[in-house]
């Protein structure tokens, strides 16, 4: 059996969703899961604080969401697919979300792509 783990080694700029990350992000991920219902997306739009309270999000976690700080939401344990789901509530799609994580503008990001029309 190949050893999957490389203790002490890490991949640059990558936050592998390990069990410890999943535990740290439990509140963020629970919130995101509920967004698979339109009813809860509507609740978020009307009163996001109440919905975030239902899932016991900390002040720091709410701030990351309210400030659309996607990169730090990932670092706080938000699974990327859940962060995408939360970003959608702010009308932020995958590519703008990616550009923000890279720290560049959406336009700059598109320039790095092979077929920028395929969004």
């Amino acid at each position, binding site marked *: 059996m190949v050893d999957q783990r490389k203790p002490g080694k890490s991949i640059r700029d990558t936050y592998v969703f390990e069990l410890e990350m999943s535990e740290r992000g439990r509140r963020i991920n629970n919130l995101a899961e509920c967004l698979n219902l339109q009813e809860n997306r509507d609740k978020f739009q009307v009163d996001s604080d109440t919905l975030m309270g239902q899932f016991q999000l900390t002040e720091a976690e709410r701030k990351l969401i309210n400030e659309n700080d996607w990169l730090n939401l990932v670092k706080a344990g938000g699974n990327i697919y859940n962060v995408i789901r939360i970003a959608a509530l702010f009308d932020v799609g995958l590519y703008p979300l990616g550009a923000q994580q890279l720290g560049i503008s959406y336009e700059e990001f598109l320039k790095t792509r092979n077929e920028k029309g*395929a969004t």
Partner: protein
Amino acid sequence: MAKIVAGIGTSHVPSIGAVIDNGKQNTPEWKPLFDAYEPVKTWLSDDAKVDVVIVIYNDHACDFSFSKYPTFAVGTASEYEIADEGFGVRPLPSIKGDPALSAHICRHLVYEEEFDITICRDIKVEHGLLVPMDLCFPHQGDWSVKVIPVQVNVLQHPIPTALRCYKLGKALRRAVESYDQDVNVAVMGTGGMSHQLHGERFGHLNTEFDSWFLDNIETDPEAICDITHFDLMEQAGAEAVELIMWLTMRGALTPNAQRIHRNYYAPMTTGMGLITMQDPA
């Protein structure tokens, strides 16, 4: 007796679903992708005459919760609802299951193969399964084939090893071959290819790796089984670890299976690969 008549490896990029729903398949940016699937569709229905597809896919934090997260999950339903992934429900007919074959597969995997699957009476299916179905099988009113969903943990580490996924394919083949109904089964491995969606490495693509993978999934899958998750993620991007699911498809075919179609397109952030294979007659 049931038999495996086709193997398909394909990416399941969610934007493909939106392209289809908006009828943009013929735009210059998307035509190269969709054109590649036209001969595949014909081949699957007319030559391979597929009745049932075992779809190896992953849910993306949609119908499966990190609260209780299975390594391998197998659906047993007669119908699978289309999931709302957070953006509304796509206008697709619900997926049809094959409860009798599902139950046979579950019994075979648990009793004979020592696979400790999670058995799912209910699954809502999302883009990981739907995009490959969209690309490979027609649906006018209803789908032309039945589906057995096999959901794999590629999200929360520890995820299964590449080798374990390959062995699952071999076990699925024995399950199918011990089923006493005349059913033509395709096995589809989905996900990848190179991509990373999170962190400051967003957008990482590695077309060279993707090309190596497409070569080896055809001719030397055991070379891929030796890759660690770490190396796969480092080379092809963290989310590219989905590619281990292609090995389940490959394990379900014989070592000397022949490639029929191959395609590759990488317009934005994900290498979109396609391979189809078939055992020698």
